[in-house]
């Protein structure tokens, strides 16, 4: 069985989650703690990519990231590469599409932590940045795990938008979801079952590991 699509998907999911955590953490923090009047509209905006069917989102991304698009055009001019049909394009699409799964749990986690621990840290001389990294983030750990799990799993399983933007180029943009889909479509049920089962077992074991390691109980005193 050709495992390249599996590696592509794992890479894509990992990079996507990494990018999402880097972008989503400050965004979630701002949504949880900010006092701007833009907070609520932005909060509503974050959930919107979810509402569009993946292939339709993919279609709009094709326009946006295409060589004539408002993002893809400048990108092409600067880098000389097109964004569509590239791994980078897939990452951008996945990031947009999985954004709410990362931002919303994080936002809730930061809200639950609240401002009090940060006040306390400030009284010990921690700058807001320091307190954010050493206090707020560890206390929001549950939110990070949920964000990571949802973001990773959604990217693994995502398919419609990635297919559109990636063009299913073997070895480059053909992710495992596309491969399984093809097996099903071509009646190669055996291969489809095998890949699906592999994906499920792998994911289950990974999640089991994460949840066990994580304990998920710290801070809850019963």
């Amino acid at each position, binding site marked *: 069985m050709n495992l390249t699509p599996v590696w592509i998907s794992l890479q894509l999911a990992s990079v996507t989650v990494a990018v999402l955590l880097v972008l989503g953490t400050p965004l979630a923090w701002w949504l949880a703690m900010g006092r701007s009047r833009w907070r609520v509209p932005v909060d509503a905006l974050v959930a919107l990519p979810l509402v569009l069917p993946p292939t339709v989102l993919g*279609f709009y991304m094709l326009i946006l990231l295409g060589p004539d698009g408002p993002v893809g055009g400048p990108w092409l001019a600067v880098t000389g590469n097109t964004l569509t049909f590239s791994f980078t394009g897939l990452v951008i699409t996945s990031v947009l599409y999985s954004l709410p799964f990362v931002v919303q749990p994080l936002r809730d986690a930061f809200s639950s932590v609240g401002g009090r621990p940060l006040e306390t840290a400030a009284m010990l001389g921690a700058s807001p940045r320091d307190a954010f990294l050493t206090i707020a983030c560890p206390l929001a750990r549950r939110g990070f795990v949920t964000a990571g799990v949802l973001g990773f799993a959604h990217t693994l399983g995502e398919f419609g938008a990635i297919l559109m933007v990636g063009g299913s180029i073997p070895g480059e943009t053909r992710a495992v979801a596309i491969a399984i889909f093809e097996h099903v479509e071509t009646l190669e049920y055996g291969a489809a079952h095998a890949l699906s089962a592999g994906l499920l077992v792998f994911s289950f074991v990974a999640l089991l590991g994460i949840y066990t390691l994580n304990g998920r109980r710290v801070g809850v005193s019963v």
Partner: protein
Amino acid sequence: APLHVAVASNFLTPLETLADAFAEQGGGELLISAGATGQLYTQITNGAPYDVFLAADQARPQRLVDEGLARADRHITYARGQLVLWARPGIALPAKGLAGLRPELVTRLAIANPALAPYGRAAREALEATGQWAALEDRIVQGQNVGQAFQYLATGNVSHALVAASYTRHDNRPAGAHQVVDTDWHAPVRQDAVILERTDSPDQALAFLAFMQGPAATGILQDFGYQPMDESQ
């Protein structure tokens, strides 16, 4: 009750026109569900409530017949599709057809997934037969079906696409020149239809298949870029 027709998505637009004509001539209403041929096949094997299945290929209807889900004597070829090479505006088409395509002019070529879509398979055959496959392989992007392959072209993400000729007649077709790929380069894309065993309205279904083979339908099919049926079929 309306006749429930499952149709391969590349044929959805023609079918909507055919349905109007069918209704006008008193054939009754059609209820249309579109999907990929493979999906529709899987649904049918799992009890989908369709009366007629218009596939994009011949294999799936044949399988349904073999499995006893469709009747052998109600199995027809309703259309024969052609492949066209489409180029973005500003890109000249090769004078000598696909064989003369200069690879350096192609930034990306969109085709449907050959494993899934008959037009994809035809496109691949044509590229191989004209010796272009090796030169273009790394620039080929695949849509899940012809429709998606066409979207790549419509959104400006590919310079060329090999798609169904039916798009050339489409009202909303994007700009750009196109030319028919010589049918010698690929096996004909025959699209078969079957009436499903489980139908409650066999007569109506039969009437619809008859209509599909009739002159009114043939005209519409030609308008959409499908070739008339050979008599041999």
